[in-house]
C-alpha cells in the first residue's frame, strides 16, 4: 500500500526571481499535473507548506513561493544548488474544459496569479480555443509584480489589464484595484462568459460581487481557496470548511458551491 506521507526529493532546476520575496522554483517532476493543483513542499526540521503549481512543462513543475513563513524562509535561505522534498500533486485543480470555447475573464490578486497562470498560459498558446479573453492582474506596487516577462507574451494573445494598488512616479501599469476594471470589461455574451477569481479573501469577495453585478452567472464563476493544510489528503482537518475539504474537494470551487462555505 502506498504511503502518501513520504515525500520525494526533487531537484531545483532553475530559480526565477520576481521580487526580493517571490521566486519561482522550477522543480524536477514527471507526472500529470493540472493548473490549480498544489504540492506539499517540505524542508526537514522546518516543516511542510502547500504551494500552488504556477507552471507545467516537460519534466518540471514551477512553484512560485512567497517568503512569508518558517518553511519558505528556509527555502529562500538555502535553496542554492539544492533540492526540496515534495509530495503531490493534490487538489482538484482547474478543469480547462469548463472554459474552452467561451469568453474568459481571469482576475488575480498578488500571488493568486500563480494558481491561474496555467490557465492563462494554456489559452495564450491556444487562442483558437476561447472566444475572447481578459486577464486582470493586480499587485500592491510595481515592485510586487510577478511574471513580468510573461505579461509581454500574454498581451499579444489576450486583453491584459495589469494594475497596482499604488505607485510612485512613472509606471507601465495602471493604478487601481482589480474590481475597478469590472465595469469596463468587454464581454459580448455575459450570461455565458466564465470567470476565474483568485487572490486574497477580500479581493475575491469584492471581485465576485462585481462580476455578479455585471451579469455573470454564479455557475460560471470559479474561485480557489487557500487554507492551512498538514496532510493534503483529507485527514488532518485543518482545511475543512463546512462539509468540504479544501485539499480534496478544492482548492478550486465553483461559486455555486464556494458561496456556501462558512469557515
Amino acid at each position, binding site marked *: *500500500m*502506498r*504511503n*502518501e*506521507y*513520504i*515525500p520525494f*526529493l526533487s531537484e531545483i532546476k532553475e530559480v526565477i526571481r520576481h521580487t526580493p520575496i517571490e521566486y519561482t522554483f522550477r522543480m524536477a517532476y514527471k507526472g500529470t499535473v493540472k493548473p490549480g493543483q498544489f504540492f506539499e513542499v*517540505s524542508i*526537514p*526540521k*522546518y*516543516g*511542510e*507548506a502547500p504551494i500552488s503549481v504556477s507552471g507545467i512543462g516537460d519534466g518540471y513543475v514551477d512553484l512560485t513561493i*512567497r517568503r*512569508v*513563513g*518558517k*518553511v*519558505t524562509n528556509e527555502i529562500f535561505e538555502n535553496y542554492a544548488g539544492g*533540492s526540496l*522534498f515534495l509530495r503531490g500533486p493534490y487538489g482538484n485543480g482547474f478543469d480547462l474544459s469548463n472554459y474552452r470555447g467561451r469568453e474568459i475573464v481571469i482576475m488575480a490578486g498578488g500571488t493568486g496569479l500563480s494558481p491561474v497562470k496555467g490557465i492563462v498560459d494554456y489559452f495564450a498558446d491556444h487562442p483558437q480555443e476561447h472566444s475572447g479573453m481578459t486577464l486582470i492582474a493586480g499587485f500592491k506596487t510595481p515592485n510586487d509584480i510577478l511574471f513580468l516577462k510573461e505579461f509581454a507574451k500574454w498581451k499579444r494573445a489576450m486583453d491584459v489589464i495589469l494594475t497596482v494598488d499604488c505607485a510612485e512616479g512613472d509606471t507601465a501599469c495602471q493604478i487601481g484595484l482589480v474590481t475597478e476594471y469590472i465595469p469596463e470589461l468587454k464581454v459580448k455574451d455575459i450570461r455565458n462568459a466564465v470567470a476565474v477569481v483568485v487572490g486574497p479573501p477580500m479581493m475575491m469577495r469584492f471581485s465576485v460581487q462585481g462580476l455578479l453585478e455585471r451579469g455573470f452567472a454564479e455557475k460560471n464563476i470559479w474561485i480557489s481557496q*487557500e*487554507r*492551512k493544510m*498538514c*496532510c493534503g*489528503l*483529507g*485527514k*488532518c*482537518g*485543518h482545511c*475543512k470548511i*463546512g*462539509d468540504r*475539504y479544501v*485539499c*480534496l474537494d478544492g482548492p478550486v470551487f465553483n461559486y455555486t458551491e464556494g458561496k*456556501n462555505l*462558512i*469557515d
Partner: protein
Amino acid sequence: MGFQLNEQGFDALLSELSREYVIYAPKCFAGGNTFTDVDCIRYGTVKCVRDIVFDRKSDYSFKEAFLPVSETLFYFTEGETREADAPRKKGAVIFLRSCDLHAVKRLDEMYLNNGPEDFYYRRLRENTKFILMGCSQSFENCFCVDMDSSRSDNYSLSVDRKGDYYYVDCRDESLHALLKNNAAGELAVEPEYVRENKVHVHIPDNLSIQAAKSTIWDEYDSRCIACGRCNFVCPTCTCFTMQDLFYSENGKAGERRRVHASCMVDGFTDVAGGGSCRRKNGERMRFKVLHKVYDFKQRNGYHMCVGCGRCDDVCPEYISFSNCVNRLGDAMEEVEKHEK
C-alpha cells in the same frame, strides 16, 4: 456463541491473547485526574481482568490507545527518508463501550475513505480486535440512545460482569476455541445496552449551515477558554498537526511526526503571513458542534457524534455540548425569522 467465565478463566483468556496482542482497557489511575485526589479512568495495558474498570465511564476514550497521540511517520537523514516502524509489533485488543465502537466507524471513515487510505492508520487498524463492554446503565452526560450508538454487534467479543462471573458473546471464529477452553459454561449471551439516558438531544430536521449565523454562538466567545479538552477526549476527533523534530543542532537527522490536534485551540487555522479563520472561541464552538451533528452527516450520511458525553464531563468551564445541540432549534428559528 456465548460463554460464562470466572475470574481465573478470563485471566487465562487475557494471558493467551497477550501472546499476539497488546491488551488495552480502561484502568484506574489513582489521583490522576485534573482535580486533586480524584482518580482518572483512562486507557492502559492490562494483564488481568481485575485491572479493568467496568463500573465507570473512562474519562479519555480508547482513541489514545488505538492511535498514538504522537506518531512518528518517517525519519530524515540528509536527502533520505525512512518509514517509521509500526508503534506496536503485536496486534491490539481493545476493550470499549458501544459508543466507542461506533466511533471506530467514524475513524475508519476519515482515515480510510476520506481521500486516499492512510497508510499508518491501516497498519494499526488491520490487526486490532474490539471487545465490547456492555453498559448495564447510562453514565452521567451520556446520550448514546439519541445518537443511535447504544448498541453494537460488530465486535469480536462482548463482555458483561455480573457478580463473580463474566458473560461473553463471541462473534470472532478465531477466538472460539480459546473461549471454550477457558469457560465455565456455555449459554446464550446478549451484551447489555443502555435503553434510556437521562440526557436527550434533539437535532432539528431543518438544521442547515445557516445556523452558523445565529447569535447562540456568541456566549461561547467568553465562556469557552479554547483549551481543546473536548477534542482530546472525543473518540471521533481525528485532526492532527505535523511536527518536525531534530535530534541535534546540526540538523542532519530527525523525524516528522503527527500529533493529535484540536480545532478549539489557537493556531489550528494559522497560515504563514498571519492569516487565520475563526479567531473567536464561539466560532470554534460553532465549527465543532456543526461538524459533529451536521456537516459530517452531509458528507457521510450519519452523524459524527456518538453521544459519549465525555466533552461535557471534561469541560473546565462546564460548557455542555448536548445543551448546545439542543439550542440548534432556536438557532434555526432565529436565522429563519431574520431571513423573512
